[in-house]
């Protein structure tokens, strides 16, 4: 109970800080919006490829871009932890009775809340530019849950890295290095069966792809719920592993001080 309450306090602290700098949330939306609007136009003709089916490219792209927005914003979550370390806030929290789990869970929860808000915005923009979600409201909710799970897992990982590296440059490097390949090695832009063989294998192992597949499957016309649930299960397991790593990373940080 105490841990849950503390998680809530820590998440509220972060959400309040975010509320005071809404432009930051807006900034992380710029890139996915550009992808949705520009790529949607640029690759319109992709759907003429044999085997792509008859949906519009923007409809195909929409779930992928929603997941991308989660990835883009949650990867930076560790920045707040680096600021806390530099400002002495982390040290103060670590010598108070709050548990390490609550410190991570609070950050992750805040990230998930932001991802949900962003995903809703992205879905609305996608609808406005002509995408459709035949899976209906339930499908969209599953898409947003997948987005939140992936965002939470990456937020936890970002915090783990922040605690171990303790430098903005390292985190910026890692996030930029990871985000684009994970996006391209997925079915965000191109159907899986049209990817080269090795990329198909890579995408099967790519958590970003699990989230995209779950979302696209659930929002599509004929949903394979078994596959959706297993994708969501993998995402939940990934979140658990990343959170465990992040909690452990406090040990690495404390050994350095």
């Amino acid at each position, binding site marked *: 109970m105490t841990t849950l309450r503390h998680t809530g306090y820590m998440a509220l602290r972060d959400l309040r800080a975010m509320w005071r700098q809404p432009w930051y949330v807006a900034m992380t939306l710029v890139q996915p919006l550009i992808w949705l609007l520009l790529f949607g136009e640029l690759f319109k003709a992709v759907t003429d490829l044999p085997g792509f089916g008859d949906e519009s490219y923007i409809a195909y792209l929409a779930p992928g871009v929603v997941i991308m927005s989660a990835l883009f914003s949650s990867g930076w979550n560790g920045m707040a932890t680096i600021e806390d370390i530099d400002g002495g806030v982390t040290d103060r929290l*670590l010598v108070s009775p709050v548990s390490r789990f609550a410190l991570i869970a609070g950050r992750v929860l805040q990230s998930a809340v932001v991802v949900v808000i962003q995903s809703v915005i992205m879905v609305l923009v996608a609808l406005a530019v002509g995408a459709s979600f035949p899976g209906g409201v339930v499908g969209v909710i599953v898409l947003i849950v997948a987005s939140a799970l992936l965002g939470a897992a990456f937020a936890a990982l970002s915090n783990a890295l922040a605690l171990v590296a303790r430098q903005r440059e390292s985190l910026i490097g890692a996030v930029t290095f990871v985000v684009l390949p994970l996006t391209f090695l997925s079915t965000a832009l191109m159907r899986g069966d049209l990817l080269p063989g090795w990329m198909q294998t890579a995408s099967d192992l790519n958590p970003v792809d699990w989230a995209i597949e779950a979302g696209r499957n659930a929002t599509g016309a004929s949903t394979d719920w078994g596959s959706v649930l297993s994708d969501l299960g993998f995402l939940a397991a990934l979140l658990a592993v990343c959170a465990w790593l992040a909690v452990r990373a406090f040990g690495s940080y404390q050994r350095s001080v």
Partner: protein
Amino acid sequence: MKTSLDHIPAIDAAGLVKTYPGDVRALDGLDLSVPAGTIFALLGPNGAGKSTAVRILTTLSRADAGSARVAGHDVVTGAGLVRRVIGCVGQRSGADREATGRENLVLQGQLQDMRGRELTARVDELLEQFGLMDAADRIVKTYSGGMQRRLDIAMALVHRPQVLFLDEPTTGLDPEVRVEMWREIERLKREEGLSILLTTHYLEEADRLASELAIVDRGRVVAGGTPEELKSELRGDAINVELAFRANGAVEAALAPLGEIRELVVEGTTLRARADEGARAVPLVLGALESGGVEVASVTVARPSLDDVYLRHTGRSFEEAER
């Protein structure tokens, strides 16, 4: 807080050792005993190991060897208990700069499991006490250095701790703000009966605030006692001579015949020595230096200070060690 715990030392540490990667030995067998209800100062230059000791005592860091108890709880096996009875003010602020002063205080209280009316009342009381009521709902980023420091102390006190750690609380503050902070620390000891461990590299600060102090050098306590005891260990006055030029060896040779002069140390162009009656020794010293061909720029005589105590126990002057 007058409780039955008064006979338990606020802090009791023995043989603390801490080595950082790269073979940096920050603590080298540090022993410490702080009686409850006193202000105890750890005095030493930067890098002496004071902050490392505080990090271990506050459960942030773990010693490689040795043991420590705070308010009777072991800092390793009873870390959770220690965290409920200590308040910490680190060298760096520790307040969330994007939140208001009140939000910072409330969160700190919530993490100590205070809630509802009790917490609200305590936060208001602290805001009042530390003169932050008008700024309570402003973002901490907009606070002055002194206000931020006062908020840091208020945050450390929310849950009415038994032992307060102040790690260089006045470093980087303006002189007026520093004096104001000293008054506040004295008040805390007087009115709240807190045990306070203070680290400082200001001799003046330790002299004024501490009822007892330990001089830390290279990870060990080299001397301890009340400021008066430490100063009275030194017999006689300090003689301080600034030379016009470096005089390698000439000073020692010139002063060797003078029986009145003890504890002679030459660092660059500064000469320090001790004599029972400084006023009588000065002409002799000046005469000897002149006939030794050493040119003098200025000379002062002073009653013993903690600086002298430091010099005596470490073989270095305080300014020298700070470099």
